[in-house]
């Protein structure tokens, strides 16, 4: 491994992290908190009055009007470097903006397509000339952009694109032909970042002016949710694109596409945390007002359990999302801002954390799904009707598990990227795995457990989860070698074990950091959510690991490993109902998601 002073992607599995070293939402500074208030204000002042028309009448054009308002407010420029009219904000700020704008339903997707995937390819891969030409106008919303990777025949398998580009004889233009599908903002965008294969082979990025001859924007898709976002096909028939609009290098379009996906994923992680909070704030007041059998819904044990589980899962998601933001910012801060290749290098730093980006995309989008599902249920029949927002939140949530790489694709990527790093020698995973294997197959040591200290049991659990990860990954790599790629069941189970570990540790570290700063009393709310989450996660990890082991080893070896796994996943259980009660009570009092004591 190199002599880097900052953690690298996936390193959490191999080393201990000090609570002081994780970034948490409690660490937001004054400016960041003010930004958040402005985004909240934007949603209230500009989006809410149009909400009915956007969300229930599906007026997609209003997204354009809102982008024009968002630009002057600075909501489109956080990702753009200062020399090009932006703010060059850190990732924590960018993620906070994504989280906050998520309350604007369809417009959150519109905003993401503009400020994220529609802008970042130019930020990271554009020439200085291209940056000068486009970024200042993208920052203000004068220019609206979109991003076209997906085609009718290639979705997850994006590199199988059929769109072609051929250089004209005079060498001044490329002629593009093909069709893109499901393109957010296409209904009114001025430009598109688009991928095509030069001579049918070399996958390459282009910036295409959508007013060019030969471009046709197809009709709006009739979608299940985010009905106010524009999603259209783009058809290209002999479209002439100047050679100066080629983005990045010829044949290196996949660099752009995959790197931009990483950014899309960490932003989606943040916005789905916002989605989960939105579901809670839309349901909690109702559970206090609605009475059945003579008492408010929120006093029923099963409602309280739902509230507690949603809160604890949201807490875990939020903790891992902002911990990841901190990792990215620390890594990017090691770069020299005056280096002319700073932007390009900073996306390289993000790539190092591709594992974390995929994890938070999957975990937080599923936390959001859980929140939408359970919060809708809390409203009963009212949850199912459009008079209340949960019906919409439930439909809108669904897309998050599909775009920015489906959750299946991202699950495959998590262990895949870890193994790749291990093989490249960037993560000493296999050595660590061998050590764990020795420990697991050796004689168990019995230490008499004493009275555990503050969150010590949870700390032990997290340490054990890491051992489980190393054991199952090590065994799977040993057993399947290069064929591991084909073992999707094993890979997905490994991904879930890894995510549970990252989630549990992130929740724990955040709580410990808060307790160290403000005292254990102030961290009581977080501590309860951590106890509940980590306890349940260990049980899930035990089942997943048992199945992976059975898929990878057999006979005596399997029995030895299963016995070791039982030791690692043994726990006494927590007083669940009491935990549920306490966690729920705090959410109910706050009438929204709350980490307060």
């Amino acid at each position, binding site marked *: 491994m190199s002599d880097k002073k900052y953690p690298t992607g996936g390193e959490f599995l191999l080393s201990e992290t000090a609570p002081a070293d994780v970034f948490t939402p409690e660490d937001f500074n004054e*400016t960041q908190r003010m930004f958040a208030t*402005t985004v909240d204000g934007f949603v209230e002042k500009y989006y809410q009055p149009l909400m009915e028309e956007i969300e229930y009448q599906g007026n997609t054009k209003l997204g354009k009007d809102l982008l024009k308002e968002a630009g002057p407010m600075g*909501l489109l420029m956080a990702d753009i470097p200062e020399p090009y009219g932006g703010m060059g904000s850190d990732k924590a700020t960018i993620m906070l903006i994504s989280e906050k704008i998520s309350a604007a339903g369809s417009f959150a997707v519109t905003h993401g397509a503009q400020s994220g995937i529609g802008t970042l390819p130019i930020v990271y891969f554009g020439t200085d000339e291209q940056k000068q030409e486009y970024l200042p106008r993208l920052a203000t919303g004068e220019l609206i952009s979109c991003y076209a990777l997906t085609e009718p025949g290639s979705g997850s398998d994006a590199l199988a694109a059929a769109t072609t580009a051929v250089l004209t004889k005079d060498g001044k233009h490329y002629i593009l032909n093909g069709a893109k599908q499901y393109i957010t903002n296409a209904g009114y965008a001025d430009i598109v970042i688009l991928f095509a294969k030069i001579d049918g082979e070399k996958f390459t990025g282009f910036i295409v002016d959508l007013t060019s001859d030969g471009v046709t924007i197809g009709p709006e898709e009739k979608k299940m949710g985010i009905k106010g976002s524009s999603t259209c096909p783009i058809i290209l028939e002999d479209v002439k694109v100047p050679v100066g609009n080629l983005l990045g290098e010829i044949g290196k379009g996949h660099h752009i596409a995959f790197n931009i996906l990483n950014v899309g994923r960490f932003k989606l992680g943040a916005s789905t945390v916002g989605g989960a909070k939105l579901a809670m704030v839309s349901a909690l007041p109702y559970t206090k007002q609605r009475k059945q059998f003579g008492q408010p819904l929120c006093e029923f044990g099963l409602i309280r359990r739902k509230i507690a589980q949603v809160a604890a899962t949201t807490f875990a998601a939020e903790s891992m999302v902002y911990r990841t933001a901190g990792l990215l910012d620390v890594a990017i801060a090691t770069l020299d801002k005056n280096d002319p290749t700073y932007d390009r290098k900073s996306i390289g730093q993000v790539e190092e954390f591709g594992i974390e980006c995929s994890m938070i995309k999957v975990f937080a989008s599923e936390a959001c799904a859980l929140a939408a599902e359970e919060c809708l249920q809390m409203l009963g029949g009212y949850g199912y009707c459009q008079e209340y927002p949960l019906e919409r939140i439930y439909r809108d949530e669904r897309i998050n598990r599909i775009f920015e790489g489906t959750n299946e694709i991202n699950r495959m990527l998590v262990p895949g990227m870890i193994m790749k790093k291990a093989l490249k020698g960037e993560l000493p995973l296999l050595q660590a795995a061998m050590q764990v294997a020795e420990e697991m197959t050796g004689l168990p040591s019995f230490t008499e457990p004493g009275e555990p200290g503050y969150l010590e049991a949870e700390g032990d659990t997290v340490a054990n989860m890491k051992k489980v990860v190393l054991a199952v990954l090590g065994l799977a790599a040993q057993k399947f070698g290069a064929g591991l790629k084909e073992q999707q069941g094993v890979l997905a189970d490994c991904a879930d074990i890894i995510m549970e570990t990252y989630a549990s540790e992130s929740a724990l570290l955040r709580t410990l950091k808060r307790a160290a700063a403000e005292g254990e009393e102030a961290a009581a709310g977080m501590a309860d959510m951590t106890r509940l989450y980590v306890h349940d996660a260990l049980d899930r990890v035990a089942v997943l690991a048992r199945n992976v082991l059975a898929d990878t080893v057999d006979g005596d070896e399997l029995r030895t490993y299963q016995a070791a796994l039982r030791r690692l996943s043994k726990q006494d259980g927590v007083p669940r109902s009491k935990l549920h009660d306490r966690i729920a009570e705090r959410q109910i009092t706050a009438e929204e998601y709350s980490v307060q004591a």
Partner: protein
Amino acid sequence: MKIAVCVKQVPDSETRINLAAPTAELDSSGFTRILNPYDAYAVEEAVKIKEAGSDVEITAITIGPDTVKETLKKDCLAVGCDKALVITDPALDHADAAAIATVLSAALKKEPYDLVLCGFKAIDDDNGQVPILIAEKLGMAHVSTITSLELGEGTLTAHREIEGGKEIVQASMPAVLTCQKGLNEPRLPSLPNIMKAGMKPMETVTCADLGVEVPANLVQIKQYSPPPARGECKLIDAEDPAAAARELARLLNEEAKVI
């Protein structure tokens, strides 16, 4: 032209106030604090004047503890005020309107302001006295609860809403104006302006720095007590609206004894 905007940080109207029993002092530790919404109209009006004319300097002035700085930065400097003055002094912790007006007047004398804009009242104590007292102390004209403003050469024309109509007032400058809802639509601070706000000057002074002695309170708050618990709501179950109205009238007369 120099404009001063006197602002106050108040608890958010959605803040839950923990007040179980009567007390002499509110527990304000958990309050979310915001700029008094009427002051936002004053800030916005000042910024609009600045945008319309040339050479306008806006100073936001407030009295309060260190925590007011965040509000000043976000809601005054980040929306267009040029500088801020914070008067922080423990002697002012429980000051009444007269004391606050005395101290603010002292601060306002430091520069020759042409206009002093204020909210017409603060939503926490609902007093609405400070601006009038300032006008009196500084010998300035005073127009209250304005809903529109036009500036002329050394004069101003303002609209005020009065019972059943509108009053158009002309006054000479310098003047103290208090702002009412309807005057304008306060803007949100944009993200880049929030960044820039950190670079604008914010000065903190004590009463001694201003050379003013805090006068003794004329008014003292003796007690805060929670409102009486609301009784159970009664739903009238009746055949038709007429029957429901009859039953309601009977209840109001016989049980509630209000008619």
